[in-house]
């Protein structure tokens, strides 16, 4: 460990911070789904642009890592590009758009379609980590609810959904129970992606910068979407075919393609779509 300082002291964060975040990450992995507080640092980007995810990624990255950054499934949005550029500069790591070639993937709002592997880490950017916040504004109370596993309230939210819409209309940030214990907000990913979290071979890390929380799902951990017996969870997607690659089992974006407002459905995971085309 003599040259540890050299090894660790890269990727923007100072060693102290990195150590603190890694400690939080280890704790988070030990208690799947539990929100670990951490002292979030100022990042050279505003809150809401993934500062939590960036700090987690920075704390994980090693020189040999290959980084992929996606935003809503796409590698080439401004946000994804700027985060990727940021790490190219401060860590000098290789980057890729190819899901299979990445060792660390930072994501906003999607899980790649391609099944992840054991040697990958998926880092989620999280705006609001507390799934109970919607109905219980008091942080002291939600903490006790987690501690005592008092989760009736989460079903109240789903009950409200059904009573208003005739079905569970929550389509994003659909609450899950991790390892039969903690209820977790999977960040605003579409519920279509929820099943991918269950027994996922990759490590899943979640960082919320503004709210200063880190949580995690270790590899091969049970992640179950909440539901009612008579209104079971459904990983719904638009009943359409990708007009670019012809995929029928992917999560689709509806995009406007010309001035006349013509719409088209295509895979939201751009890397997956490209790989299917060829």
């Amino acid at each position, binding site marked *: 460990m003599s040259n540890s300082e050299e090894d660790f002291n890269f990727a923007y964060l100072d060693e102290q911070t990195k150590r603190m975040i890694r400690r939080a990450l280890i704790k988070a992995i030990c208690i799947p789904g539990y929100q670990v507080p951490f002292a979030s640092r100022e990042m050279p980007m505003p809150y809401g642009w993934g500062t939590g995810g960036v700090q987690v990624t920075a704390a994980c990255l090693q020189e040999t890592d290959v980084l992929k950054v996606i935003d809503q499934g796409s590698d080439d949005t401004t946000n994804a590009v700027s985060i990727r550029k940021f790490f190219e500069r401060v860590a000098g790591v290789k980057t890729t758009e190819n899901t299979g070639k990445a060792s660390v993937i930072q994501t906003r709002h999607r899980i790649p379609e391609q099944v992840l592997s054991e040697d990958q880490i998926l880092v989620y950017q999280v705006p609001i980590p507390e799934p109970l916040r919607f109905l219980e504004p008091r942080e002291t109370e939600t903490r006790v609810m987690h501690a005592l596993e*008092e989760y009736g309230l989460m*079903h*109240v939210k789903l*009950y409200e959904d059904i*009573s*208003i819409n005739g079905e569970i209309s929550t389509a994003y940030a659909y609450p899950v129970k991790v390892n039969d214990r903690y209820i977790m907000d999977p960040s605003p990913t579409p519920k279509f992606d929820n099943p991918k979290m269950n027994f996922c071979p990759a490590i899943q890390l979640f960082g919320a910068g503004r709210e200063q929380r880190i949580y995690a799902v270790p590899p091969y951990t049970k992640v179950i979407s909440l539901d*009612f017996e008579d209104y079971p969870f459904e990983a719904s997607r638009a009943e359409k075919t990708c007009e670019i690659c012809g995929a029928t089992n992917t999560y689709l974006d509806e995009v406007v393609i010309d001035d006349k407002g013509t719409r088209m459905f295509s895979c939201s995971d751009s890397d997956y779509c490209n790989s299917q085309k060829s």
Partner: protein
Amino acid sequence: MEQILKAKAINKKFGDVYACNNLSIELYTGEVVGIVGESGSGKSTLLNCLSGSLVPDGGNITYLDRDNNWLDLLSLPEPRKRNLLRTEWAFVHQNPRDGLRMAVSAGGNIGERLMAIGYRNYSQIRAEATEWIEKVEIDAIRLDDKPSIFSGGMQQRLQIAKNLITKPRLIFMDEPTGGLDVSVQARLLDLIRSLVRELGLSVIIVTHDLAVARFMANRLIVMKNGKIVETGLTDQVLDDPQHSYTQLLVSSILKV
């Protein structure tokens, strides 16, 4: 006749104020005990100590649970205590906002306790919520409305439905008809009374309204400055009060 709650020598001080000064009370199964007294006499503080929402400085409180075990409430682990509050106990607040989630529909409010104890069938939860909203005399059409658009009396009835759906055994009420006008108040009291009888509930009800106390309580406790000055059968305390303070209290208001 069996006791369900026993409190001995309860003390609670706020600064120099003795809100509860060495109070002992016991409650029997199926009994409705009223606590009356002027503002600031410590009624709410006593109720909060008994119901576990406030920790007394000293004393001892035991409760006989559904399985016939005496529980020492002051040393009861927090999870068990909260579990009691959701299942065997109920607390009806004066202000319905303290007992309801205003952003959640009436049905969601009523169903919350069911979901908290593990109900996972939407239709069943809804059926029971419908049954209860009707029991408290609110039209079932209102099940999906938010309580924020309900009248004060309806909110209070909703709070009662929300509390009673899990068939609690012990119910604490702090001025349950406080902010309501007289006719609404009478309807609500009647409703509470019939539910108390139907479900065999034991009740501690705090009120400063002696008329409410007369109609609701079998037994009355009169408090002043954190102390119990008199206790007895409700009509006896009101019709033949022994303590000068109670005499003043009874004579200073219209005949009830």
